[in-house]
């Protein structure tokens, strides 16, 4: 039996909101980045579900581009985390307030 498109989109929304919760609630920069990765994946699932529903390749190509950008984002985000928290024992994004006015 074929699964309806709405099921996939609902699942995608649930994953997205879990990722948002991770970014908003947690103060560990690594887990915040993982929440962002969850959000990328929710978008990818929606793209691929719609590609299947419309039998179009465009969704696949855009999901591919999203994966590329997600890889670049993870690399740069982790580099920033490393340089900011390299000498700090206690890792908490709220402690990074150098630019605060």
């Amino acid at each position, binding site marked *: 039996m*074929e*699964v309806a*498109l*709405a*099921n*996939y*989109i*609902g*699942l*995608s*929304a*649930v*994953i997205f*909101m*879990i*990722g*948002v*919760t*991770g970014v908003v*609630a*947690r*103060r*560990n920069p*690594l*887990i915040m*980045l*993982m929440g962002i*990765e*969850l959000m990328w*994946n929710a978008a990818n*699932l929606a793209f*691929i*579900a719609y*590609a*299947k*529903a*419309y*039998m179009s*390749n*465009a969704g*696949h*190509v855009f999901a*591919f*581009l999203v*994966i*590329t*950008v*997600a*890889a*670049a984002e*993870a*690399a*740069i985000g*982790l*580099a920033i985390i*490393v*340089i900011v928290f*390299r000498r700090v024992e206690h*890792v908490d994004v*709220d402690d990074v307030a150098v630019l605060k006015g």
Partner: protein
Amino acid sequence: MITFWLLAVLIVASAVFVVSAPRPVYSVVGLLVNFLCLAIMYLTLSAEFLAVIQVVVYSGAILVLFLFVIALLSSGVRAFSVGPNRLPRILAPVSVFAALGLGGLLFVIIESTPPAAQPATTAATAAGNAGVFGSVADFGQALFTTYLLPFEATAFVLMIAVIGVIALAGDVDAPRPPRRKTLRQRERERILKEGS
């Protein structure tokens, strides 16, 4: 049908585990389960190439990067991420409500408006069928003809990312080893010393 619900339960459970795990290493393991289940779901949606890419890029590259950073940051210092979590008690039910509400809303909206009539193509049944929706050949054909410019743009994005990471993490201000003197400089010093 049963595959979808099994995978959906696994995906949601592992995603919740990712954002609620006490230590980042546990989160990475939860994220691994999440990505692998999503890859299987992509296969059921006949996106073969993306399922492979999901495993290779996400589970292979990005998660290993996360593990490296965790190992790098927690080396030598006390247990990483024991600090305050600042997850307000009220936020947990609110976020559950928001997730289910948004998911249910989208479900209802999309359920009531089915997609337009589909072209009469069949889903891929076996790999390697050119022209069959979702096959690798079909995806590659689209990527290198219709979407060639976005594909080239990703190369640009990755290049900028590489340069950015090197500029950020590379130790630019480190003292450099003294450069070797050129023959001309040594000759000049020798002449100056002899002259004095």
